[in-house]
């Protein structure tokens, strides 16, 4: 295992990242969002004020405070302010509906929610007081909400001085230890409802150090962030740049990529991060190719959040400036974000690999006997390290399963090559039984993407009495003139017979989760619905 090199050994709690940067770079711009340019000093002061307010409300160490907000300056203040107060920050998915919000508030036993006016309707329709919520701290114009009973304006509490004579608010170190919980992040479970992944300060701090180490981040780095902070990937962009004293440019308009590219150029952004759909979209309908000469500062792009096809990776390499490195990464919420990365120098040779373990992490392919698999043998990818969660909130069974035998079980099927690079072949849950074969749809999807016929494509298993599953394709075509015959003859020419799907349907977009990952269940439902209509 490669050891972690801490940026500063005195850092043991997540909000220390902010507190270190405010000491070293008080007047440096930490966050850019639209016209707002906010310094480390301002964020720290407002986070201190918020923390004081939370303590005055009776918040105790370990209390869970829910955070429901789009990416913005106030989000960042809240995230660090909650931890400064010794509480646990629980960022919630901004796409939650009534049931999801009620579930989370109930599961967390949260009394306080920090939110913004955009979510007024959702909050007022959720009767959260019946689930124990007593306080709402709300960003935006005066509140029309009558429930919960206590609604206060975010600006008033974060701007109101604590009256401690500008002394830095230093809760934590005295009362908190690095094994205390810092954050809980919900992931969608295939069974049993969403799971709250509990992450300690140590989990997040060590993973942040590790990412800074392999990406060689410094205070000069400027990150364009289009990914939501409520997922670990977006959150790690924030933490890593706050750890080194860099700058995060928040842009919530990725649906209009030309706007994002323009800001990347004007802000001289050095890093951009996305999930596979981010890059598919950028390559399909954006002025990236014509902007490449203006992206002189773009040092690297990182991709995580699931498998991205080789075709997209190759296209991305052609379109990006030659000085921009591509870093393929792999991780999980349960790992506080990151588990492995592919050294950019290996990109051309090992493009399909997720690379090797990051500093502080051990990775292994485990066979069905619980032993390390041989080179080339497919098994489950497991991991251990100081970044691995202590468990899921209120779900001991799921925790025991995920952390069995001292390893975190990723649920991904993978193998290791003779040089020690890991390759993920697909999710265990996604494997399809077709006739006598057990197939990974990912492999067929990669072949399909090489045709150039699709923006995105997913291979699904339709229940079939004879075969168990019948392979079908749901795809977004690159051009309106693409025909089913064209697709089927491509498949027949490139795939062995048992891997050739029997049917293709075209749609305008593939259903996705808010993480940007393709929602296979919803895709199958969409395919079947189209089937019924015919």
């Amino acid at each position, binding site marked *: 295992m490669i050891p972690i090199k801490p940026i500063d050994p005195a850092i043991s709690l997540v909000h220390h990242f902010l507190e270190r940067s405010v000491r070293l770079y008080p007047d440096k711009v930490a966050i850019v969002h639209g016209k707002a340019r906010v310094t480390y000093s301002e964020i720290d002061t407002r986070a201190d004020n918020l923390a004081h307010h939370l303590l005055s409300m009776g918040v105790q160490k370990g209390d869970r405070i829910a955070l429901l907000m789009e990416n913005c300056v106030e989000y960042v203040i809240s995230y660090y302010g909650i931890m400064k107060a010794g509480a646990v920050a629980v960022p919630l998915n901004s*796409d939650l509906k009534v049931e999801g919000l009620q579930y989370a508030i109930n599961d967390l036993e949260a009394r306080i929610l920090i939110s913004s006016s*955009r979510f007024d*309707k959702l909050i007022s*329709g959720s009767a959260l007081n019946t689930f124990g919520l007593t306080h709402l701290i709300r960003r935006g114009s005066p509140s029309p909400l009558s429930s919960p009973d206590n609604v206060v304006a975010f600006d008033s509490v974060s701007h109101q001085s604590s009256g401690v004579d500008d002394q830095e608010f230093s809760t934590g170190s005295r009362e908190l230890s690095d094994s205390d919980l810092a954050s809980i992040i919900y992931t969608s479970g295939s069974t049993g409802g969403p799971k709250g992944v509990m992450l300690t300060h140590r989990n997040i701090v060590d993973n942040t150090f590790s990412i800074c180490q392999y990406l060689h981040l410094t205070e000069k780095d400027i990150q364009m962030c289009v990914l939501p902070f409520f997922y670990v990937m977006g959150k790690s962009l924030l933490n890593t740049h706050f750890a080194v004293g860099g700058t995060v440019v928040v842009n*919530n*308009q*990725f*649906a*209009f*990529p*030309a*706007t994002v590219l323009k800001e990347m150029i004007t802000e001289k952004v050095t890093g951009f991060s996305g999930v596979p*759909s981010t890059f598919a*979209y950028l390559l*399909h*309908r*954006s*002025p990236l190719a*014509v902007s490449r000469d203006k992206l002189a500062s773009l040092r690297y792009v990182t991709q995580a959040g699931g498998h991205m096809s080789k075709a997209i990776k190759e296209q991305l390499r052609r379109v990006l400036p030659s000085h921009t490195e591509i870093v393929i990464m792999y991780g999980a919420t349960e790992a506080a974000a990151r588990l492995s990365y592919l050294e950019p120098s290996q990109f051309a040779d090992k493009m399909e690999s997720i690379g090797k373990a990051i500093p502080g992490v051990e990775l292994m392919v485990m066979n069905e006997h619980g032993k390390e698999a041989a080179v080339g043998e497919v098994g489950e990818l497991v991991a251990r390290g100081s970044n691995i969660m202590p468990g899921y909130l209120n779900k001991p069974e799921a925790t025991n399963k995920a952390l069995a035998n001292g390893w975190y079980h990723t649920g991904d099927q993978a193998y290791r090559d003779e040089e020690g690079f890991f390759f993920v072949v697909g999710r265990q849950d996604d494997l399809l039984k077709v006739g006598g074969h057990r197939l990974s749809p990912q492999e067929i999807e990669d072949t399909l993407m090489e045709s150039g016929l699709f923006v995105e494509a997913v291979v699904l298993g339709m229940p079939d009495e004879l075969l168990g599953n019948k392979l079908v394709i749901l795809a977004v075509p690159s051009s*309106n003139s693409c025909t089913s015959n064209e697709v089927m003859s491509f498949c027949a020419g490139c795939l062995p017979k048992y891997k050739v799907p029997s049917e293709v349907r075209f749609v*305008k*977009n*593939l259903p*996705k989760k808010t993480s940007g990952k393709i929602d296979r269940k919803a895709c199958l439902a969409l395919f079947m619905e189209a089937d019924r209509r015919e």
Partner: protein
Amino acid sequence: MEEIKKQITEFIATNFLFDESITLSVEDSLLETGVIDSTGVLELVAFIEETYGIKIEDEEIVPENLDSINNIALYISQKLSQVSAGQAAN
């Protein structure tokens, strides 16, 4: 222009307004109100190109042109006048 607004409103209502609690005015940001996302923008672009026979350049896919019913209608009208001006010149 009013006819274009009507068609765009209809398209958005049919394809994106599944949440009945959302009431959309012609000036509202489609993105901020959560009506549309990346893939929704692609659908909108395809709809405009097909319905009005205009080509939207990648650089033109920006909020100023496409983030509200008003902006969309104005953008389409301008594109259509450019097309007719071009045809008249020929």
